[in-house]
């Protein structure tokens, strides 16, 4: 049972739009949350500008609990919370919530790792100039780590395209949903190939933009 491509293209277009929506909104929310968590994690580390063992241990533990859970399981496990926050567990909007949570913790780690690699001497220099912790975070840490940070977030974005496909299978819509219902369950290989090609193109675009931005900020 083959699909009729003249009527099917608009569906593909719509699914692509849903995937892009999920990824972009997740990226925005998760970046905000993840960057805040990552900065806190770094700043509260032992010997750092806002050293605080309690906050550090709490965040560190939380990240280590959430991160290893396979996303497809996390998606289901978190659904009561999703229903509570979004009102439903089905549809593109509902998919953004679990994706944001999972991605935020991943971004927090990426942010922390990139901050750790900043030469402590640079932070010391800013401290010696009389910069406050807030001034150091926004005036030194973020600008110094921005290049590699963008690459890290690009990596997460590519992962999000993958997440969105999984979210699709549990009613999130998007290309993943399409590929599963038409390509996998109805054995229509052509649909699968088309969706996969579109996914590949999306990943290429995301990586291209990320590389360009990071090169601009790395100034290399």
């Amino acid at each position, binding site marked *: 049972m083959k699909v009729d491509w003249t009527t099917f293209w608009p569906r593909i277009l719509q699914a692509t739009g849903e995937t892009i929506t999920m990824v972009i909104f997740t990226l925005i929310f998760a970046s905000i949350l993840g960057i805040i968590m990552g900065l806190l994690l770094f700043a509260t580390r032992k010997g750092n500008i806002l050293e605080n063992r309690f906050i550090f241990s709490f965040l560190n533990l939380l990240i280590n609990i959430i991160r290893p859970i396979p996303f497809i399981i996390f998606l289901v496990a978190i659904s009561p919370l999703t229903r509570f926050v979004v009102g439903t567990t089905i549809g593109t909007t509902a998919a953004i919530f679990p994706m944001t949570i999972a991605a935020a913790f991943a971004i927090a780690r990426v942010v922390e790792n990139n901050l750790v690699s900043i*030469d402590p001497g*640079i932070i010391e*220099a*800013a401290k010696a100039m*009389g*910069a406050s912790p807030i*001034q150091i975070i926004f*005036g030194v840490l973020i600008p*110094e780590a921005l*290049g590699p940070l963008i690459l890290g977030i690009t990596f997460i974005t590519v992962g999000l395209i993958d997440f969105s496909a999984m979210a699709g299978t549990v009613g999130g819509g998007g290309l993943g949903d399409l590929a599963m219902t038409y390509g996998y369950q109805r054995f229509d290989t052509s649909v699968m190939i088309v969706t996969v090609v579109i996914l590949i193109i999306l990943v290429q675009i995301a990586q291209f933009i990320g590389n360009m931005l990071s090169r601009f900020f790395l100034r290399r």
Partner: protein
Amino acid sequence: MIRLERVSKIYESGGKKVEAVKDVSLHIKKGDIFGIIGFSGAGKSTLLRLVNLLERPTKGNIIVDNYDLNSISSKDLRQLRRKIGMIFQTFNLFNSRTVYGNIAYPLKLEKKSKEEIHQRVTELLQFVGLEDKADKFPEQLSGGQKQRVGIARALATSPDILLCDEATSALDPETTNEILNLLKKVNEEFNITILLITHEMNVIRKICNRVAVMENGRIIEEGEVFNIFSNPQEKTTKNFISSVVNEKLSSSLLEKLRKDHERKLYRIVFSGDTASQPILSTLTAKHNIHFNIIYGSINELQNQLFGNLIVEFIGADSQIEEVLKELTEIVEVREVTNGES
């Protein structure tokens, strides 16, 4: 300007206590270029960081610019730090900012207007001789240029004190001299008190007026650079001095000299005015004996001469005795024995 009273700093790592700074008292006066020399691990880096409280003392009092650092509020501390510039061995420039941006950063912290910042940065770029590098990023600069940016950045807020953490240790000898001259100019033109740490005696000799020698967390010797050079007391101090003033002879050379010269050898140490007077020739002529210079070196230190000669005297023993007696009253004279070179 800076006063340390019985300051100690103890680190605890893995249950082990490490006393990096032990009971150090120091007084650095306004306008000094004060050098602290020591081998790595002597505690000088920790000592330097106590002055702007990048490290907190475990014991003792530190007074900087009339602030007692034990009771300073964090707001006052940030204010004080803007009056203390700091430069580093690894420069620690912000890689994400241009040369201009690096120098402007401390001014931005002070919330200065764009015009004020532009004027000050331009001034400083000119002072360090990097007018044409304003838009370059640190990675596009050489080591010497990076340190110039570091100096300009440290001077941006017109500090009273400049702390130098091994500021020339990563530079080649020629660039080191350029940077040292620049530091001297900073001290002379702006009357900025400089506290520097180094492991190179050459740095002390070139620009410092006072020096403290540090070993195992303690200051083992301290004083005017000229006095320390001409009359060092401690073994470590002597070692540091011999690294720049080549007064020691190798034992093999000494042995050869003693073989070639049957007479007794004497070391004569001149310093200050005596180094520029013809003392030896006057005295030997007076007593009608001759002298033969076997080895010698004359160095310039703090605009004074400092000399070191090994000589033998040729003539009657009684006359030589007389010459030695009169010499001893003016300069330091020691007989060179096998044990001492």
